[in-house]
């Protein structure tokens, strides 16, 4: 096998392994002695460095691992940032709306209104600090009552909850005694 082919094999081994590969394992796989294997790895590593590539090879305790170039880190982090991620879902939005208008209320009361489990939505809202515990209901089990946070008010830009848009038309009366 030609040297360039050996280099390609080493490159593929380091790429696929995802962890540090001991020099001995590489040497054995390409059927060369350790010194030769080491020379091949270093040639490849130097090439990456000289050509300012996006990947590098580092040595850890007699083993070798492929990794990203430090210069690229910011970009990698940017790629995984929020734009690709999901925003507020309809379920969470509705849950937030119910809490905003009906607070304070328990999870069971939310579920009674929405007809489905609110566990995930409420915990998401608590995690985002839009909703928090505001007390316990004086009933068996002392369930937690939820309300909106200052963070919520600050975001939506009104001074306190009483400034929520009023519910006019739609059968507001029916909503109350229910």
């Amino acid at each position, binding site marked *: 096998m030609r040297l360039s082919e050996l280099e390609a094999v080493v490159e*593929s081994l380091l*790429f*696929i*392994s*995802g*962890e540090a590969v001991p020099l001995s394992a590489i040497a054995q796989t390409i059927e060369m002695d350790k010194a030769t294997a080491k020379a091949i790895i270093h040639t490849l590593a130097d090439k990456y460095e000289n050509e300012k590539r996006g990947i590098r090879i580092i040595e850890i305790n007699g083993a070798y691992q492929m990794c990203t170039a430090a210069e690229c880190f910011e970009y*990698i*982090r940017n790629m*995984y*940032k*929020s*734009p690709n*991620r999901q*925003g*507020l879902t*309809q379920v969470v*939005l*509705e849950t*937030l*709306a*119910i809490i*905003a*208008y009906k607070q304070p209320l328990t999870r069971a009361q939310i579920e009674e*209104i*929405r*007809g*489905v489990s609110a566990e995930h939505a409420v915990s998401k809202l608590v995690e*985002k*600090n*839009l909703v928090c515990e505001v007390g316990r209901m004086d009933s068996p089990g002392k369930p937690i009552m939820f309300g909106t946070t200052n*963070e919520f008010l600050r*975001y*939506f*830009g*009104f001074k306190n909850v009483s400034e*929520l*848009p009023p*519910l006019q038309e*739609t*059968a507001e009366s*029916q*909503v109350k005694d*229910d």
Partner: protein
Amino acid sequence: MVKITVRLNAFEGPLDLLYHLIEKNEIDIYDIPIARLTDQYLEYLDAAEDRDMDGMSEFLVMAATLLEIKSKFLLPKPKNEEAEGVDPREELIQRLLEYKKIKDVTAEWRQCEEDAAFTLYKEADQAVKQLKENAPQSLEDYLQGVALEDLYLAFRQVMARKETKVDHVRSSFKTVPRDLFTVQEKMEYIRDMLILQPKTTFFSIFRKKAGRMEMVVTFLALLELIKRKEVQILQRMTFGEITISRFDGRDSA
């Protein structure tokens, strides 16, 4: 006649067996000698060594179809010239052609499958997964596009929904909907759900927007599947979550 021994499970179904007979006899697929093919097909079923009812039923359905086509050829043709155009074999021919197309292309797929096996991909390592999960998402990003107005609209929507749900009087005025749901379909639905999620919860087999009739039918379908020992249900404690899974052969009771 020479006795032949056949194993039906060597074939992937009635179409596969028919296709085999057509190839073996070098029959023109567009002009199938239906009587001969039917006889041969039935001989195969007769000679089959592995005749368990489960595997047989599909082969028997095809036998019935073949016999039906054969009988249509035996019937005297109506004088009416218009009826002449319809060949009783037409549907079967189309199905065989469709099946042949798929069967033929899979040979090419085999090659692709083999070639692609030489290419390997790696999974993202732990650090990247963390980067992905821990990427800070600001409240602005999370609530992007959500205005106060939306909150208001969402609340109205929820309340409107709740109202139509509890208003028995008004809903009783509605026209009676057609029987849209059958136990048979719901059984299929539950089977498919269990394909996607081998362990699923009792509640998840009911569609979110399911009406009362659909719920009742779904429940009946579940009971039927339990009776047929296709699925089993498990509840670890009183009022605990009920899980549904495919029957694994053991009685949970």
